[in-house]
């Protein structure tokens, strides 16, 4: 088995790990770091269930070699929880707007929402639709997802 030692930051903590070079980043995050918010949906980059932030940009971790994570700053949904386990505003909005049903797509969608919200810009609903278009949701019909993201975007920008 060919392995490689990688060092990276995961959810704010410096980590070091000997990794099988054949592993996807999804494999490493789930199996080695127990970050099970990262879902295995299609595993071919189509659905967004495995989406994580790497150096501030969204990537489908199922088509990303784990060894490439060396030196990178990675964030998963687990990083959003407050100290006492509270939900973040965007997670709460998903609950309030009924933007979750089975929840399988949700961690991936929320990490894209985090990337969108971190730009601190105001987007139209059409722009949000495009920015969220890398995610498949079999349950909600998307409308409520867009409502939830729009609600937090406006709230954070101090808009009605």
């Amino acid at each position, binding site marked *: 088995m060919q392995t490689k030692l990688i060092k990276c930051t995961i959810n704010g903590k410096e980590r070091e790990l000997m990794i099988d070079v054949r592993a996807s980043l999804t494999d490493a995050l789930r199996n080695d770091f127990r970050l099970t918010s990262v879902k295995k949906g299609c595993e071919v*980059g189509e659905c967004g269930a495995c989406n994580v932030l790497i150096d501030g940009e969204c990537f489908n971790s199922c088509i990303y*070699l784990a060894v490439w994570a060396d030196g990178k700053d990675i964030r998963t949904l687990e990083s959003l929880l407050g100290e006492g386990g509270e939900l973040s505003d965007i997670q709460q909005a998903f609950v309030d707007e009924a933007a979750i049903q089975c929840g399988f797509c949700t961690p991936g969608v929320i990490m894209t929402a985090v990337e969108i919200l971190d730009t601190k810009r105001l987007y139209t609903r059409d722009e949000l639709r495009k920015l969220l278009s*890398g995610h498949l949701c079999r349950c909600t019909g998307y409308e409520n997802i867009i409502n939830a993201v729009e609600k937090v975007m406006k709230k954070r920008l101090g808009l009605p």
Partner: protein
Amino acid sequence: MYDMKALYEANSVRHACELLLAHPGAKVIAGGSDVLVQMREGRLAGCELVSIYGLDELRGISLDEDDTLRILPLTSFSHITKHPLINEIIPVLGEAVDMVGGPQVRNIGTIGGNTCNGVTSADSASTLHAWNAVMEITGIGGTRQLSIKEFYVSAGKVALLPGEILTAILIRNADYEGYKGHYIKYAMRNAMDIATTGCSVNVKLTADKKTIEDARIAYGVAGPVPMRAPSAEAAVRGLPANAETAELFGKTALQDVNPRTSWRANREFRLHLCETLAKRALLKAIELSGGEI
């Protein structure tokens, strides 16, 4: 886990070339959005990979001393779309690659990978053809340049020799100064889809904006590789920039294209797209150049 025989990570361009010579069966992996998917599907199962993803020296966009636009091959689609030089010099390329896949795919997908795949549907390829892009290729012995037309050999095959990689995509000043372009991707969905047919057109108008000094057009999925339509280009040079000329442009383009029937669409529909998209893209390019229809 990917079904991979071995992974070799290059730490420089030279090292990548050496690795490719040492492992003749190995595939180059840039962003991996094609290679890793093909590995999952079994087509590349058991393959050796040479990863160039870590070569930051192959990322970025700059201007050479002679004002040639230099796009490095590992630049991601999203970085191309956001780059100020692209927005100033060739915004149509930023728009075209903003139609690839979805947002996450555009963060990992690279313009070099998109072209080295040699597929006809690549959203970047028709625009690069339409702007006479020059491909800079590096091997152990040095660097050579090829026009993008010569670079595409046949479906899925490009002119890279063993031990060579693409190290830059160049667009010369004479090929962009005064030109404005438009790309239309026709697909079934607005995201996560591959072009049924794509068409990229650019024009240079005379100073009074009334006449077409030069027009260039290239298609994706109008044949086995991305292609220009030279008859259409010749037909409209020197003609007034109007709707009648656009009509002629679309009709004449049909002499050059040769689309096939696939599960996405049949040949007849693609021929219809070739004509219609050429016409619409030309009108839009004229409008962007300040012409009045």
